[in-house]
């Protein structure tokens, strides 16, 4: 196949995939009638597939909002945390690596009952840093109850 052929197809594919649909979305919701105001400490469980330290990023977001937060493996969870946090993610590549999707799930650490979740999906042209995506998920849920 001629090189110019491939270049044109690549451009068309790229444009169609990354600009033809909705630019990005982000949403967060809690499971009613849960009260998030009593949650002060969070433990972010490291996802074994995560080599990009997203757990640390999420932890830092909680801390920046005035909460206590730590991260580690599920078996090292402290006894006295108020909420367990897990996350799902999808990296993609478009000239450089970027975080296409971040999903954060918050649960009761004793019962595993779902408390709240949020998701941010940002295709290439709308990309943001993991920290910014973490913030846009967690702030709608917790900013009103943050210490500062």
């Amino acid at each position, binding site marked *: 196949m*001629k090189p*110019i*052929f491939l270049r*044109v*197809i690549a*451009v*068309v*594919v790229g*444009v*169609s*995939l990354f600009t*033809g*649909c*909705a*630019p*990005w*979305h982000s*949403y967060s*919701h809690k*499971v*009613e009638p849960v009260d998030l105001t009593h949650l002060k400490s969070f433990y972010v469980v490291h996802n074994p597939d995560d080599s990009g330290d997203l757990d640390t990023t999420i932890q830092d977001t909680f801390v920046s909002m005035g909460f206590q937060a730590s991260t580690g493996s599920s078996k090292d969870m402290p006894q006295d945390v108020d909420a367990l946090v897990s996350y*799902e993610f*999808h990296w993609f590549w478009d000239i450089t690596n970027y975080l*296409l*999707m971040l*999903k954060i*799930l918050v649960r009761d650490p004793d019962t*595993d*009952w*779902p408390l709240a*979740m949020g998701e941010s*999906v*940002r*295709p290439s042209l*709308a990309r943001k840093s993991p920290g910014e995506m973490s913030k846009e998920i967690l702030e709608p849920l917790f900013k009103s109850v943050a210490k500062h």
Partner: protein
Amino acid sequence: MLKKIRVDSVLTLCCAFICGTLLIAGCGPAQVQTQRLIPENINVAKSQAGSVQIKVTGGHTGHAMQMPEISDEMFVKALETAVAQSKLFQEVAKGNTGDYQISANIFNLSAPFWGRAPVSLEIAWQLFRKKDATLLWREAIVTSDEGFGDSGDKSYSKVGAIESAARKNISLALERMSALDIALPLK
């Protein structure tokens, strides 16, 4: 030489146009169908007396990557139909009425962006007695589906997997609610 270049350019442009059209036209995804969220057979242990209101939260539409999703509206319709068909309660209440409330929060729908990975769906179910807002039962139910259907033809369908996971979830929830002893106290 000039003729060869013109043919190449025309071919390139035609192929690019066809590819682009196919891709852009195909940008809209296959959609989840409300009717396909309704389980066919629900094993109800017993019917509960009274009427039930259905409330659904956590659903979404408008995914940035055009992924198929379940909206609150379609899940309400599917759940109302499933409850009515199964006769889990005597009546499905409309509006804000009803003796009980089934609250379903579509907590986490995990589906692959690309490829043929299984789909999983977690719904946080709660059953309330409305008169005194008592929580009678709650359970977070996780169901999944490989996406290859029951036909055995090995063709993967993400939408089919989502619909199947939803059917299983509704079915399990209604079966568990039917086993509860929640009779309304005598007035």
